[in-house]
Structures are given as structure tokens and as C-alpha cells.
């Protein structure tokens, strides 16, 4: 292991700081701080001020960008484009931290001219910053999962080659769907579609807009805050790690002739119908009744 600390610049665009706070939930921050040094971070004490970052030309190993970007958006009096240009050329890697920085996310609609992610406007690839694309990794999610970000940074430090999907997301975390590992899976498998909020039982895919079966992410594989996930408690996945986030009407499953408009990744309509017919036939009492609140 290299003993030198890598210099990291955390640059915030049009953002809510949710990723910076989610990062603070990484359980082993002492270890992280032994390996990395923040030139600037929006919350944690850092070696330089933002004004230093803007006015000086500092050595930087990894550039982290949080939030959507726009040529109009300024840090103090300098366009964030200029700051990204300056530091991305010298950084060995650039990481877009969160869905806004990766695809535009919620703040794509913030009103700033052409607000988008660094390389993507939703799923459309952009021409700006194409020259640095080979150095970029996208960690999407609203917010990012701290372990996904930190372990990616550890891999960068160890010069480990990271396999990426077409949106530059590490496959190790984003080849899965959020559905993988959900504790409500049985209700999905056997198509128990009478989900009610406020209960431990039931699957939110059929009525309540759960996007987990077609959203890439590890939410149910690497739990949130080490303890839980949204779908486990009964809140549908909102698809927050995808370029399409946020879609509209997030609490309802859009259906055509009773069939969800979006099906689990790779599943065709006809097979879905066949399978649904079979699973319905199971009629499993255990899954039709409350687990233990009787």
C-alpha cells in the first residue's frame, strides 16, 4: 500500500450537500483520513479555503464533483466550469458524486443554463468535458452510498482497474438491481400484489411505484447506515441512481391493461404474463397473512 496521502478536492455544484453528509456516515473515517487528504471539502476542515482553490493552481489527485453543473453556476465569482477545467486536467481520476453530478438529477431543473451532469444530461452523452471522460467514474445515487464512494476511492488509490457500465458506474456496485436482497422478495416472486403502506408484508412493485427491479444499485446488498434500506421498511425505490431520476408520479405504478409499464430488467411482457399466471396459482397462505402482528 502506498503511504502517501492522495489529495482530494471535493467541489460542490448545484447541490443539496446530501452526498457530503452521506459520506460522513462512512463508518471508518479515521482510516479514510489516513489515506486521503482533502484540499477542500464543504463540511470537513481542509487544508485550503475555497478561495484558495479558485485562485491558486494546486496539486490534485482526485477531483470529486457533487451537484449538477452549469457554465452559469459560480463558486464565488468563478464559473464552476473553469474550476473543473483547471483541476480535471491534472487529476488522475474524476468522480461524479451522486446523481446530480452524474446525470443532472433533481437540479437539472434548477433553472441554470444547461444544468446537467458532468458527462451526461440524463442519458444523453454531452460534448463538454469529453477530453476527460476516460478518467471519470460515476457514483450515482441520491445520495451516494458512503461505502460505494469510499471503496471506489480505495480502489483508485490501489490502482485497481474498475470495470464500468455505459454510464461510467462501477459494475461491482451497479450491475445489481436494488431489488437484489430486498426482504420483500417473496411477495414479488409470488405476485402478492395487495401491498398496503404501514405493513411489513407485501411488494411495492405492483401498485406503489417501486422501481427496484429495474434500478441499478446495491441498496439491498450493502445496507444503508449499515442497518436497513428503503424497500425493506416499505418505501418504494424511487430509481434515484438512474439517469431518469426523478421520474414523475413516484408513488404509483403506471400500468397498461393491468401490466406494469416498466418490467424487471430483461423481462419481456409475454413471459411476465405467463409467469404472473403461474405464480398466482401458488396461493400461499403464509404470504397472504400478517407475519406476526396477529
Amino acid at each position, binding site marked *: 500500500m502506498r503511504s502517501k496521502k492522495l489529495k482530494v478536492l471535493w467541489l*460542490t455544484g*448545484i*447541490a*443539496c*450537500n*446530501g*452526498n*457530503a*453528509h*452521506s459520506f*460522513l*456516515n462512512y*463508518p471508518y*473515517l*479515521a482510516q479514510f*483520513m489516513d489515506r486521503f487528504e482533502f484540499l477542500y471539502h*464543504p*463540511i*470537513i*476542515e481542509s487544508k485550503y*479555503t*475555497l*478561495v484558495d482553490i479558485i485562485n491558486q493552481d494546486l496539486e490534485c489527485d482526485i477531483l470529486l464533483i457533487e451537484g449538477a453543473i452549469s457554465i452559469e453556476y*459560480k*463558486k*464565488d465569482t468563478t464559473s464552476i466550469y473553469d474550476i473543473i477545467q483547471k483541476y480535471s486536467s491534472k487529476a488522475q481520476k474524476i468522480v461524479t458524486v451522486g446523481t446530480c453530478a452524474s446525470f443532472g438529477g*433533481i*437540479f437539472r*431543473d*434548477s*433553472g441554470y443554463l444547461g444544468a446537467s451532469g458532468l458527462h451526461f444530461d440524463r442519458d444523453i452523452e454531452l460534448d463538454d468535458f469529453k477530453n476527460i471522460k476516460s478518467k471519470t467514474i460515476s457514483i450515482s445515487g*441520491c*445520495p451516494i452510498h458512503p461505502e460505494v464512494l469510499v471503496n471506489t476511492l480505495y480502489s483508485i488509490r490501489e490502482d485497481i482497474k474498475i470495470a464500468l457500465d455505459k454510464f461510467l458506474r462501477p459494475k461491482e456496485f451497479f450491475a445489481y438491481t436494488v431489488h437484489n436482497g430486498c426482504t420483500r422478495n417473496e411477495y414479488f416472486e409470488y405476485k402478492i400484489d395487495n401491498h*398496503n*403502506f*404501514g*405493513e*411489513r408484508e407485501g411488494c411495492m412493485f405492483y401498485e406503489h411505484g417501486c422501481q427496484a427491479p429495474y434500478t441499478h444499485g446495491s*441498496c439491498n446488498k450493502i445496507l*444503508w*447506515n449499515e*442497518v*436497513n*434500506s*428503503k*424497500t*425493506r*421498511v*416499505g*418505501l418504494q425505490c*424511487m430509481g*434515484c441512481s438512474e439517469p431518469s431520476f*426523478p421520474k*414523475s*408520479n*413516484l*408513488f*404509483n405504478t403506471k400500468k397498461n391493461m393491468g401490466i406494469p409499464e416498466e418490467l424487471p430488467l430483461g423481462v419481456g411482457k409475454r413471459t411476465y404474463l405467463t409467469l404472473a399466471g403461474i405464480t398466482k396459482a401458488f396461493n400461499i397462505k403464509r404470504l397472504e397473512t400478517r407475519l*406476526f*402482528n396477529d
Partner: protein
Amino acid sequence: MIKLIEKIEGEARLNYSFKDNLIDFVEIDFFTTRGIEKILENRAILDALVINPRVCGICGHAQLIATVKALEDCYDNIEISKKAEIVRELTLNFEIIQNHFKWFYLTIMPLMGYKDYLLKASFPSQLMSKAIASIAGQYPHTSYAIVGGIVCDIGMMELVKVESYIDETLKFFEENLVEADGEEFLECNNSNKLLSKDGDLPKVLNKIKNSNLIDFGKSYDRFIVFGKNSYFNSGKSNKTRLYKTIDIDRVEEFDNNKSFAKNVMYKDKYYEVGPLARAMINKTPLIKDAHRRYGDSIISRILARVCEILQLLNHSKKLLKEINLNELSYIKPKIDISQISSSGVGVVEASRGSLIHKVNIEKGLIKKYDIITPTQWNLANGTRDNLGVAQNAIIGLDSTELAEIVFKSFDVCSVCTTH
């Protein structure tokens, strides 16, 4: 002279004018905006529960609870179980607590010259995040509170688990912030007794006293609290006079020429919101004593914030005991929200003070959404004739360094303000 204030969940520019070596006027400029209210317009109503937590990474949970309250207020009649109400209050308490730890260790300690307290900030705030996640799935950015209650069922095991996180956080408080028994600390009505204790809080308070900062930070000594719940009372105070009746319709928000952030007043006056305001309205003995000695200064603000950690941890333990597990977590509203055209207001106490959401809904869509955040109260950019609370506290100081300390004593949130 323009100075950029950094690490306030974003940035703000302070434009100082000096006269006879003293700050004669200061303009507070939040120079960005993210257009959340516009983003919400014409979206499906319940989408607000997903969009609004993204107003802010550190108090997004308060934004969620304010949203759900505003939406439920659109009904003439809606039934929410006591259980769901208590659980919502608990998770909001946990968010307030994590915020206060972060503010103390990442903002105040470094300002007082104490460095490298990241782990003391992250350890207890992670515990509180885990407590939220145990109930709400994750922190930050859950949408678990929905119109009619909460999405999750709460069982005995959740309560046991959450209580263990509270106890671990209490232990951290007693071993690090003030080395004293928590109960003893809360009952104490002599703030000077604290100074002789060990711990990071006395360390900071003594530093303030010894660096002659004790008189700084004073403003109008006028406080207001709107977000009444089982712990906080609503009301306003002027010096030590308390008025319990306040009318949310008298809150006025208006543009100012300089900054994207709108100013907020109550009956044409600026008020301070936040933990010190809550302690003044609640008449917390320790904070009343500090206020008697030090007024509405930096020291009272710090003490009120740290004291609130302990108050809310203890109160949360009591709330856990009040939950009736047999109640429903969610009661499906008799009329679907997409069927009503109405308006509603939701008010909660967020970490930094009163947070107000106002919504108009029509035919399943959000027609208008208005958010008034705590920092808009405290950091209003007023005129020379009518100064905002922080402006008033800064004018008369002799350096921009001192002004920054005073400014940050309000626990400023730039992202909230620039929603």
C-alpha cells in the same frame, strides 16, 4: 470589503462597510438558488415527499415532515395514528441531534482553534442516522412519512434497537461534551457551574470567556417558535417577556434586492429562530440562566444547541415508551389526495429553527409551493433602517474574523436558504 463565508452548507458573501474602524453595515448575499419551488410546480402531489428532502442534505428530514404536514393540512379531516405521529417526531429529533453534534464539532470547535474533531462529529451523528434508518430505511433522503402516516410497521425490535442508539449517544455526550451525569446537567440552573466541568463544551465556553468574546453576538433578543410538538412550545419572546399566541398568517416573506434568499418577518419585525429561541420559549432553566448572564450572545447560542441534544435524547426515550404498538402505522385517507383541490401549511422545528411549507394543490398536481427556512429568519438581509438578526449582531464589531464567528453562531445553512 467582500468576504466569502465558507462551510456553511454552501457559501455566502458578506459585504462589509467600515466606519471609524468598526463595521457600519453588512450585506448578506446568498448568491445562488436551486429553484425547488419551481421544480415542484405541476408535479404529482406526492412527488413533493421525494423532491423536498433534497432541499437540504443536513435537514432534509425536517423538509419531509413539513411537507407531509402541509399535504395533510389540505384535508378537512384526516386521521393519523398517535403511533405514526410519535415516530415522525422521533426521527425528526434524531436529525436535529446529529445536526447539533456536527455543528459543534465541525463549525464551533475549529472556529475556537480546536482542530481535528471529525470523528467526534461523525460518531454520534452516525448513531442518530442509524436510529433514523432503523425506522425510515436510510439517512439522508428518505420519504418514509406519507400522507396518512408512515410507510413502515414498527415493532418491539425497532424500539429496542432505537433505544440502544439513543443510550450509546447519551454515553458519548456524557463522556465527551460534558463529563457529568446527563440528568444533573439538565436540571442545573447555573450555567457558570458548567465552566468548571471537564469536556469539550466547557472547553469551548472557557475559551470564549478567556478570549473576551463573551459579549459578542447580541442582536434584538427577540425570539419566535412556530413548530409546536410534544416537546417544543410555540410562542414569541421579547427579552424575557413571553407571548404564547402567535399567528402564522402574520409571517411575511419578501424579496430583497441583493440576495436570492427572501427575508422573513413576523408583523414587520425580524426574529431569531433556533435552539436558543426554543429554550427561551420553553423556559429551559439552564438556558434562562445563561441568557440572564450573557444575553442573546454566542455563548447562549452554543449552550442552547448543545443542551438541546441532551433534552431531545431524554425526551425521545420517553416518547419511545409512549408508542402503542397495536396502533396502525398508516391509515389510508378516505379521499385520495389527487381528488382534492385545497391548500395547506406544514410547520416543524428543524435543527436551525422554524420551517414553514405552504402548498396549493389542484386536480392531483402541485400548483404552488412555498418554503420558508430557518436561515431566512436569522440571516435576513435587511436595510440600514431595519437590520436582519445576524446583521444587527455583526454591526459594531471591529473585524471580519469576529463577524464570521458571530455569523456562524447562528448555524447557517446556505443550501436551505437557497432552495
